[in-house]
C-alpha cells in the first residue's frame, strides 16, 4: 500500500484509507492492473488508486473526499463495458461498486427487486425464478455484468425488442450527487409509483455513463416468465436476404421477443467454440424467440414460419425442446469469446440503424473491412437494427489498432448517414467520442456539456468521456474533412 508515489496525493490517500481499510484500497500497478480497463482492453490506464466500496456510505465518502481534494472519480461495476467508459484516469480514483452485491429485497407480489449496484444481472432472474418472474434485459454479458453498470450504460440485450432496455425496467435508483452545494448527498430518483412528480431524472441517469451521479441502489421491475416460448432458427444463403426477412417479420405484425442475426464468420467461430448446432454452410442465420400466451405464440409461429420461407430462408428449424433452445442461445451469447479465440484482439461496435437499412450497412461494412485489410464478424440484435460488427485484429502488428479504429469510425459514420446512431447500448465512453462530433451539432453538444456542468460542476465524475470538448470536435471534423 505504500507504493503510491505521488506525494501531493498522500493526504488524499490517507483520508481514503480511513474509509477503505486494508485491501479495500489498492495502489501500485501490481495491485491495480486488473482494473486498468473494462472489456475494451485496447484502452488501458493505471489509476492513482482503486477503492472497493462495500456500502452506500463508502460511495458517499469517496465522492466527498474526491471533491475535497479535487481528484476525479471513475465508478465501475463488473467492468464488462465495451466502450472504455470505465477506463481509469491516471490522476483519478477508480471506485468499484462490485462488492455491493446483495439483493436487498424481492417482492414477488409487487414484482420488484431492490438490489445493490454490484448485483450481477442474471442473479436477479435466478432469485426471481421460484416466483415465476425474471428480470427482462439480458445483455450477452449477463452472467458477469452488474446492474449498476447496466443503469449507467442503459444496457440492452437480446430480448429488448419486446421487453425494452434497462430504463424501461427500472423503477427507482439511489444516486450520489455531485451537484454544487450537494456533493455526496444521496437522491432517490423514481419511486414505487408508476408515475412520479417532477422531471424524469431517473431516465436522465440511465445511459449517463457514470457522469451525473454514482448509483448505490436500484429497484427493478420483474416480469412474469412467459408461459410458452418457441425458438426458431432460419438459415439464409445471403446476408441481404436474412436482413430483408427481419423487416418482413415486423411488417407481418409480429414483434418477436428476440430477433438475432449471425453471419458466416460468427457462425463458424461459435460453432467451433460451443457446438451450438448451427449450419456451417449458411451465409447468415436468424435466431428468433416468440414468447407469451401459448395460443398467441402458436398463432405467431405460423405467421413467422410462413414469412421466413417466403423471404428465401433455405431452412427453418423449430427447437424441439428446452435443451436445444438453450444450446442455440448459448452459441449466440458466446459469440464474443468465440471470436476472441480466433483472433488475438477484437473490437466490437454498436451502431444502430433503421431495420430496412441493415443489409446495406452490412455490405458497406464488408467493403470498408476489405479496404483496411481486416476481418469483421457480425452477430447482432437485428430486430432492433442494433449492429455489432466485431473487428478482428492483432494488436502486436504495428498499425493494426489504428486501422481498426479507422474502420470502426467509417462504419459508425455510415450508420449516422443512413439515419442511425453510433451506439444503441454500449455507450460512448472513450471509444466513440470522436463520432459524437459527427452525430451531433455544436449546439447539441454544448447542450450536453451544459447538463454535465449543471449536475457535476466540478467535473468530478468520469470527466472527459462521452461528451467531447469543443476543441476535440473541431480537431476531429478538420481531420475528417482533410481525409475527404
Amino acid at each position, binding site marked *: 500500500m505504500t507504493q503510491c508515489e505521488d506525494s501531493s496525493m498522500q493526504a488524499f490517500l490517507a483520508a481514503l484509507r480511513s474509509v477503505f481499510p486494508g485491501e479495500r484500497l489498492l495502489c501500485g500497478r501490481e495491485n491495480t492492473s486488473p482494473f486498468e480497463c473494462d472489456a475494451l482492453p485496447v484502452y488501458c490506464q493505471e489509476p492513482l488508486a482503486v477503492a472497493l466500496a462495500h456500502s452506500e456510505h463508502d460511495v458517499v465518502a469517496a465522492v466527498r473526499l474526491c471533491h475535497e481534494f479535487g481528484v476525479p472519480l471513475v465508478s465501475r461495476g463488473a467492468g464488462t463495458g465495451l466502450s472504455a467508459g470505465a477506463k481509469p484516469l491516471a490522476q483519478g480514483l477508480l471506485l468499484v461498486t462490485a462488492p455491493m452485491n446483495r439483493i436487498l429485497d424481492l417482492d414477488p407480489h*409487487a414484482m420488484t427487486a431492490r438490489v445493490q449496484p454490484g448485483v450481477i444481472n442474471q442473479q436477479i432472474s435466478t432469485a426471481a425464478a421460484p416466483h415465476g418472474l425474471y428480470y427482462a434485459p439480458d445483455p450477452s454479458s449477463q452472467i458477469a455484468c452488474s446492474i449498476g453498470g447496466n443503469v449507467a450504460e442503459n444496457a440492452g440485450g437480446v430480448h429488448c425488442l419486446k421487453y425494452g432496455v434497462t430504463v424501461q425496467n427500472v423503477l427507482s435508483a439511489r444516486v450520489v450527487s455531485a451537484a454544487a452545494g450537494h456533493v455526496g448527498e444521496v437522491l432517490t430518483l423514481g419511486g414505487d409509483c408508476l408515475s412520479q412528480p417532477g422531471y*424524469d431524472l431517473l431516465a436522465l441517469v440511465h445511459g449517463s455513463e457514470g457522469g451525473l451521479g454514482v448509483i448505490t441502489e436500484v429497484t427493478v421491475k420483474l416480469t412474469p416468465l412467459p408461459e410458452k416460448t418457441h425458438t426458431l432458427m432460419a438459415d439464409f444463403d445471403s446476408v441481404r436476404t436474412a436482413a430483408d426477412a427481419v423487416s418482413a417479420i415486423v411488417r407481418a*405484425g409480429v414483434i418477436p421477443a428476440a430477433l438475432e442475426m449471425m453471419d458466416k464468420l460468427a457462425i463458424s467461430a461459435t460453432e467451433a467454440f460451443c457446438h451450438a448446432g448451427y449450419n456451417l454452410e449458411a451465409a447468415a442465420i436468424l435466431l428468433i424467440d416468440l414468447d407469451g400466451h401459448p395460443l398467441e405464440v402458436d398463432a405467431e409461429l405460423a405467421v413467422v414460419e410462413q414469412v421466413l420461407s417466403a423471404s428465401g430462408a433455405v431452412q427453418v428449424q423449430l427447437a424441439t425442446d428446452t435443451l436445444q433452445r438453450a444450446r442455440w442461445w448459448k452459441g449466440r451469447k458466446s459469440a464474443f469469446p468465440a471470436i476472441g479465440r480466433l483472433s488475438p484482439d477484437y473490437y466490437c461496435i454498436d451502431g444502430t440503424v433503421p431495420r430496412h437499412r441493415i443489409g446495406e450497412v452490412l455490405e458497406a461494412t464488408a467493403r470498408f473491412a476489405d479496404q483496411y485489410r481486416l476481418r469483421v464478424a457480425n452477430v447482432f440484435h437485428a430486430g432492433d437494427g442494433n449492429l455489432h460488427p466485431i473487428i478482428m485484429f492483432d494488436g502486436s502488428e504495428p498499425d493494426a489498432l489504428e486501422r481498426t479504429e479507422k474502420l470502426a469510425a467509417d462504419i459508425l459514420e455510415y450508420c449516422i448517414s443512413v439515419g442511425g446512431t453510433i451506439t444503441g447500448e454500449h455507450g460512448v465512453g472513450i471509444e466513440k467520442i470522436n463520432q459524437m462530433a459527427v452525430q451531433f451539432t455544436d*449546439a447539441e453538444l454544448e447542450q450536453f456539456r451544459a447538463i454535465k456542468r449543471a449536475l457535476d460542476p466540478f467535473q468530478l465524475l468520469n470527466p472527459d468521456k462521452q461528451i467531447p470538448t469543443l476543441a476535440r470536435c473541431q480537431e476531429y471534423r478538420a481531420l475528417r474533412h482533410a481525409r475527404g
Partner: protein
Amino acid sequence: MDEIINPSKDQDYSERLAAQVRECYSANMGLEAAEIPRPHLVVGGNGSRVALGLPGDATLAIGAHRGVIDYQPEELTLRARAGTPLSELEALLIEHNQSFAAEIPQPCATSTLGGAIASGWDGPSRAFGMALRDSLLGCRLINGRGEIVNFGGQVMKNVAGYDLARLQVGALGTLGAILDVTLRLQPRTEHMASVSFEVPRDELGRWWRRTRELRPLLTGTCYLDGRLHLRISGRAVAVQDLITQLGGDTADFDWASLANLQLPFFCGERLACVHLPRYAQIPVRAGQALIEWEGARVWVRDGDHHALAREAADLGGFVQVLRGPVISVQADAPEWHRALRDALDPQGLFNPVLFRSRFYSSADPSGRLGQGVGH
C-alpha cells in the same frame, strides 16, 4: 410575420418559433437579475390539457406547427410535428394496421402530439404495457437560447449522449419547446374484449393477485361503482379463450373514454388523481373513486384533497389535482430540477409560472426542499 397561419394545413414553423424564442432571449439580456416581471413565453398547443397542467392560451403557439415528417410502417416509427392532432395520426396508423406503442390519452379531437409528450399522461394500459416515456424515441426542440436541437433519434435503441428526449416527457414545456417527436409504434391489436365482475371493495386486493396471472393479455383494469372491468387484448384466439375461462359479464366498457377522462365519473367539481405504490389501498368513500392500474392509480371525485395528500404520502404515493384545491408536490432532488432548467433554459423563458408551481418551489431559495437523505 407576413405569412398567414392556417391551422388546418401541414406547416413547418420551426424557424419562426425559434426566432420568437431568440427575440425573447435578447429582450431578457439587458435586464437586471432582480427585475420582474421579465419577458417570457407561454408554450402551448391547442389548450386541451389545461386540467393536466398545460397552459390554455399560448404565446409561443405550437398548434399550427403540424404534419407528419416521416412514417415508415415497417420501421414501427412515426415522426411528426408537435402541433399535429393525435386523432389525425391515429387515423393514419389505422390505415396501416398499426397503433402507438403506448396508449396516449386525447382529451379532445384537437389534442396534439406535443401536448401528449409535455403532459406525460399515460392511459389505462400503463400498468401492463409500454409507458409513453418509453415509446418516445427522439425529439427536436427549441432550447432557451432559441437554438433548434435534436436528441434521441428514429431508431429503436440509442444511447448517444444524455437522454434529453425522455426528459421532455411530463416537463410541461418548461425545458424547451417541442418541435417534433418520433414515437415507437406497434402492430394493431388483433382483438380486444372487456369482461366485468361484481366485486366488493374489500375483495379488490385479492383480485389484484389474480390479475398478475392474466398478463400479457390483460391491458386495463377499472374498478367503478362496485364493478371490476378488465380489458383483454391480443390475438383473437387467445383473447376468446381467456374470456371463456374467466366467465363474468362480457358487456362493453368504454376504455377510450376512460383514457381520455371523458367518463361521467370525471365530471365532479373536484377531481384528484392519487398515485400509489402497487397494491397499496387508500380509504375513499364508495362512489367517490375510480381505480385503475391494479390499484396504482386512483381517481377521487369531490374528495378532501389535503386529507388525500396526507394519506397518499403515508403510503409512499402522491396526489395530482385536476380540479379543485391545488396540492403542490415538490419532487425529490429540487436542486437537480433547478440546475437542469438553467442548463436548458438559462433565462427561464419557458412556462416560468409552471416551473415554479410544479417543479421547483422558489419559496425556499436555498433549494433544499424535500431533498434526499444525506450522509
